[in-house]
């Protein structure tokens, strides 16, 4: 249960927060100067692949009409916010201190959708909104000083390590949130209003600490226009995939590409999803749980062998030195056929996508006869939000999350950003762009064949090794055997290391 006592006066709270702000401000500027922002990975966790994908690109347009719609729905929400509907006993005049990651999703959705919802309920509460691209630079010192914000959107290349936060008991247990009555239907618990798996993704050793909010589907992306113009059919299995790659090659298009400089994990994601299709979802579970021989499993080896061939035959060697933005731009210029990514891609590339390009996604193709259907995908909830355990207005943070998970919150986000959230039914009325439409269709078609991968968020070193080995494999320096044994060696090392906190699923 959250701690619901507030020994501090409002004035003292504000004074302290202001002092912290003063300290953080200049420091952030200095640190920002030495930061690097080219890791497209938004979070320390692979399960948060969305937002940070690009720092600049994104949903600068949109908004407009949708925000108006949201504020009207927020207004209708207000009457419900009576004394009865306050499961966390939020003090109505307690300030709420938010830090939002201004990455691919920008911080607009917080300002225009979720904060008005909160404000409608607690009109006297002052909302302190801080947006940054460098979460750890801004928030880490506040954690160290014991004065964390009430709500943090921990995402982006400079996000804080979730595993470390959990291991040091810095995060509030979200069980209270999931068990609270939902905003729209008090008879339903919040946990019953979200897509299945949402809570698990944000759980560490069975305890929920992180709210992952944005529904994310992974696959191979291509231009619908390019396929139509050449009358290619989207491949559904491995042979037809290779056939299309050959035809692309004949047209002098680079058939397959990923960015070796900073996004090789887009590709290990493909290899591992393929391995799951061959050997079943347990292949990935064993990898996450650091089981012996998980990486040297035959399914991983087979998948790595197949993709190494793709690397040798259908990729451009220069892509090893390019960043994700460069490669994605090349695809927008019709120079690249398939590109592996999650469905934040369409929103991220909005600015550079030519008219009629029409993003489309297929699941990672695999030959029939595997333990999982050909339509299987990796899907997860991305973009992590936490309430620090030592926050002054924890109840407010939890309530803010509850508002995000309301129908109005989910719908407002989906309209503004063009990505569906984990709130069930909240995006039914939203018209998504073609890419997200196709990825949502793929998710539906996958049915129960949905897998997810966690190890990269839990063990950063293992992710680094997998990235390096993936580049070596795809650009022809090692064979599948070495790929597997090399990452296995790192996994074994981690398993033996007492200093590393272990997680299981």
């Amino acid at each position, binding site marked *: 249960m959250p701690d619901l006592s507030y020994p501090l006066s409002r004035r003292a709270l504000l004074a302290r927060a202001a002092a912290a702000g003063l300290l953080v401000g200049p420091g952030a500027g200095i640190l920002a100067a030495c930061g690097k922002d080219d890791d497209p990975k938004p979070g320390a966790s692979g399960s948060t692949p969305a937002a940070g994908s690009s720092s600049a690109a994104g949903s600068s347009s949109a908004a407009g009409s949708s925000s108006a719609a949201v504020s009207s729905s927020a207004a209708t929400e207000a009457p419900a916010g009576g004394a009865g509907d306050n499961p966390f006993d939020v003090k109505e005049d307690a300030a709420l201190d938010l830090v939002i990651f201004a990455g691919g999703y920008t911080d607009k959705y917080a300002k225009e959708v979720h904060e008005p919802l909160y404000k409608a309920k607690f009109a006297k509460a002052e909302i302190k909104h801080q947006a940054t691209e460098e979460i750890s630079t801004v928030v880490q010192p506040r*954690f160290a000083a014991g004065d964390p914000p009430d709500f943090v959107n921990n995402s982006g290349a400079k996000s804080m*390590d979730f595993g*470390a936060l959990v291991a*040091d*008991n810095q995060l509030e247990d979200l069980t209270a949130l999931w068990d609270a009555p939902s905003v729209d239907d008090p008879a339903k618990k919040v946990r019953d209003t979200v897509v299945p798996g949402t809570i698990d993704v944000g759980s560490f050793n069975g305890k929920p600490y992180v709210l992952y909010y944005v529904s994310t589907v992974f696959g191979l992306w291509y231009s619908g226009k390019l396929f139509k113009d050449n009358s290619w059919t989207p491949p559904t299995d491995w042979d037809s995939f290779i056939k299309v790659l050959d035809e692309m090659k004949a047209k002098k298009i680079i058939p397959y590409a990923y960015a*070796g400089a900073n996004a090789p994990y887009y590709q290990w994601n493909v290899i591992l999803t393929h391995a799951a299709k061959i050997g079943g979802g347990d292949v990935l579970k064993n990898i996450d749980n650091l089981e012996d021989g998980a990486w040297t499993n035959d399914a991983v080896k087979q998948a790595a062998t197949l993709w190494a061939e793709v690397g040798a035959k259908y990729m451009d*060697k*220069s892509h090893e030195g*390019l960043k994700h933005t460069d490669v994605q731009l090349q695809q927008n210029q019709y120079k690249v056929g398939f590109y592996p990514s999650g469905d934040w891609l369409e929103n991220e590339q909005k600015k550079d996508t030519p008219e009629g390009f029409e993003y489309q996604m297929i699941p990672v193709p695999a030959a029939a006869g595997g333990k999982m259907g050909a339509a299987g995908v990796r899907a997860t909830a991305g973009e992590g939000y936490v309430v620090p355990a030592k926050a002054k207005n924890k109840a407010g943070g939890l309530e803010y999350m509850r508002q995000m998970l309301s129908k109005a919150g989910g719908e407002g986000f989906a309209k503004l950003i063009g990505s569906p959230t984990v709130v069930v039914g909240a995006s039914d009325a939203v018209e998504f762009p073609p890419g997200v439409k196709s990825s949502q269709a793929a998710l539906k078609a996958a049915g129960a064949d949905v897998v997810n991968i966690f190890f990269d968020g839990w063990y950063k070193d293992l992710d680094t090794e997998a990235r390096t080995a993936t*580049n070596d494999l795809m650009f022809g320096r090692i064979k599948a055997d070495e790929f597997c044994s090399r990452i296995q060696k790192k996994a074994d090392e981690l398993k033996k290391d007492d200093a590393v906190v272990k997680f299981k699923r």
Partner: protein
Amino acid sequence: MRHRKYPFIAGFLVVPLTLYVVFVLYPYTRAFYISMTAWRGFDVAPKWIGFKNYERLWSNDDRFWQAVQHHGILLVTLPVITIVIALFFAFLLSVGGKSKSGDMAGVWGSKFYRVVFFLPQVLAVPIIAVLFQTVYRPNESGLINGVLMKLGFDPVFFMIKPHLALPSIIAVLVWVSVGFYVVLFTAGMGSIPQELYEAAELDGAGKFRLFFGVTLPLLRDTLQVAWVYLGIAAFDAFAIVNVLALSEGGPNGTTTVMAVEIFRAYGKNNFGYASALGVALFFMSITFAALTLRVTRREAIEY
């Protein structure tokens, strides 16, 4: 009045000393302490683990040894290449031209070149790294590869090929540094009395003899300073590597340096280990500076 001298001096020293203690000495000792702990940088007391971080660093961290090795390479190549090039340019700029009525002069247009060489020095280092991303870009939009590919050659994968990546980084570091040392050496050469050159010329010394017989010995102090500066620079290289190299000191750690490893450890919220790396780097730099100053100590030449 003598007894008033000390309070007077102390009055001047209080402020800088306090600043020094608070912002230099305290963080240093604190880093030593944190390096002996397991700490993730939160509001939790660091856990004392003694020398465990150092044991791990010594026996179980390949990337640390890669970084040490790279510093070794940098320590030899960066000063040597930079000083040789800078000396050559500085000599041309100040003594390389025809001597007019006995006065030594630089080659034609030397004032212009002096500005050109110094230019990289006024750019921020990360900007230079971003610039060189474009210079080294592995496809037709790269500055070098664009030309190569137009001429029908295969592109050179500067940052991709493991054996090319570090030399490419060194080339950038040299490019950045040369300008400053050209100016430094030019100033040093300017303070060498003209009579010495005149005398040497009268004795029939050519440009080579002038350089090795007069310029070099009299520049000894300046060279020593340059060597120490460049040596210390060789222990840094963070910004260039972090921005220019693939995936944090990649490919495969072939360009990593200590500062990048420290940065990586912080990224993993492993503040204790990061501090241990920092302390290791501290001792490496101190040892280098002490050694250089000792080895190169010699009576200065009076002139």
